[in-house]
């Protein structure tokens, strides 16, 4: 929690300009130190080859900054579109370089006589390195990037518990020991708990980043279906009176439930566009979603939550075993 976010750009005003105009921007940063340094540099990057350097860059305070760009009269020949986005790049010795993609849009205006300034060949170099142990700054996400350590491990733990539960179910079907069925039920119960916590935390996160608690995202919908399938596991168990039949039927159902879980969570979301990272064909957790500082926290968090969930499930199982023993004792005495 005390690890800061890297500096980033929250907003740039104005964010559109016509070709040939002079653009004076006001920029708001996050976790920046504009005041502490006198060598602030700004660029607007058009393509890999062309950019404009900012002039009269001055800090208003630590988080706000002014700069001026003189926009050339025409786009370079390879750009044919009416509007083109530019990325804004800042560099200073204290924060290192950082970027806001699509910060400013340039639109073709009325035709002007050629002869103004030309596009610079890209001279974005001699950048400082901001060597700091910090998490990446992402627009929209901001500090909520930390939810990665809470929301995502819930699902890892849920999958791990459900997987173990299938294993215990198979153990039961093979051996017929009631104890295995009890373990299976406890694992499913705690798996459901983690699934529900994952769903609720995800909804809250979505509200403040995607704009709604439930936006009908494929992964959200499919997860809801998966959790209902597992809820049916408990309904099924409560519907059967004979304990042996209950254990046997529910262990078999458990296998099918897990088999349904895999396509629901791992296949369908990848076949469609989704708001979740790594959907629409790409595997999750690619290089852009987790950087190395985040991995350092994320993987131990996943492991920790899995073990924690397993421990809760074990406690639950021990309790139901104890209950069984007490019942047997009492019946013996009675």
């Amino acid at each position, binding site marked *: 929690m005390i690890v800061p976010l890297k500096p980033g750009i929250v907003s740039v005003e104005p964010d559109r300009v016509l070709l040939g105009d002079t653009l004076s921007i006001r920029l708001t940063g996050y976790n920046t130190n504009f005041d502490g340094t006198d060598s602030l540099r700004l660029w607007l990057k058009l393509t890999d080859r062309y950019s404009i350097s900012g002039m009269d860059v001055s800090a208003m305070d630590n988080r706000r900054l002014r700069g001026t760009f003189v926009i050339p009269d025409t786009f370079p020949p390879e750009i044919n579109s009416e509007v083109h986005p530019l990325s804004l790049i800042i560099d200073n010795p204290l924060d290192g370089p950082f970027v806001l993609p699509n910060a400013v849009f340039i639109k073709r205006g009325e035709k002007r006589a050629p002869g103004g300034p030309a596009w610079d060949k890209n001279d974005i170099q001699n950048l400082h390195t901001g060597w700091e142990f910090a998490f990446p700054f992402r627009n929209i*996400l901001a500090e909520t990037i930390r939810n990665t350590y809470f*929301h995502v491990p819930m699902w890892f733990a849920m999958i791990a518990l459900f997987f173990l539960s299938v294993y215990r179910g198979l153990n039961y079907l093979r051996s017929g020991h009631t104890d295995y069925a009890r373990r299976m039920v406890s694992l499913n119960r705690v798996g459901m708990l983690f699934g529900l916590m994952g769903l609720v935390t995800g909804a*809250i996160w979505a509200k*403040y*980043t995607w704009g709604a608690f439930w936006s009908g995202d494929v992964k959200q919908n499919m997860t809801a279906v998966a959790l209902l399938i597992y809820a049916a596991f408990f309904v099924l168990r409560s519907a059967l009176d004979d304990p042996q039949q209950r254990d046997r039927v529910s262990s078999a159902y458990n296998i099918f439930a897990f088999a349904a879980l895999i396509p629901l969570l791992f296949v369908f979301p990848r076949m469609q566009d989704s708001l979740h990272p790594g959907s629409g064909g790409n595997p999750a957790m690619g290089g852009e979603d987790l950087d190395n500082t985040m991995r350092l926290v994320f993987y131990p968090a996943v492991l920790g939550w899995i073990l924690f969930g397993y421990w809760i499930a074990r406690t639950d199982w021990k309790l139901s075993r104890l209950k069984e023993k007490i019942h047997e004792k009492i019946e013996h005495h009675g």
Partner: protein
Amino acid sequence: MGNISFKNWVLVAILSTGILIPGTLDAATQDFMRSTGKMYVVVSVIAVIFVGLAVYLIYLNRKINKLENRLDDES
């Protein structure tokens, strides 16, 4: 025993309303949840997990209480 778990439920109710109230404040660009770099979104996510685990512990606690009572009734 009934007393203890009732207190626990009240505690949970208070905690969960604490999460829901900032959640219902809507959409202004700088509301409470969005202030300080949306840090309170992280806070509420952690609170939800805490409440989830607490509810489960209460559920376990009630099961233990029932067993204890049964044993007491027998002896």
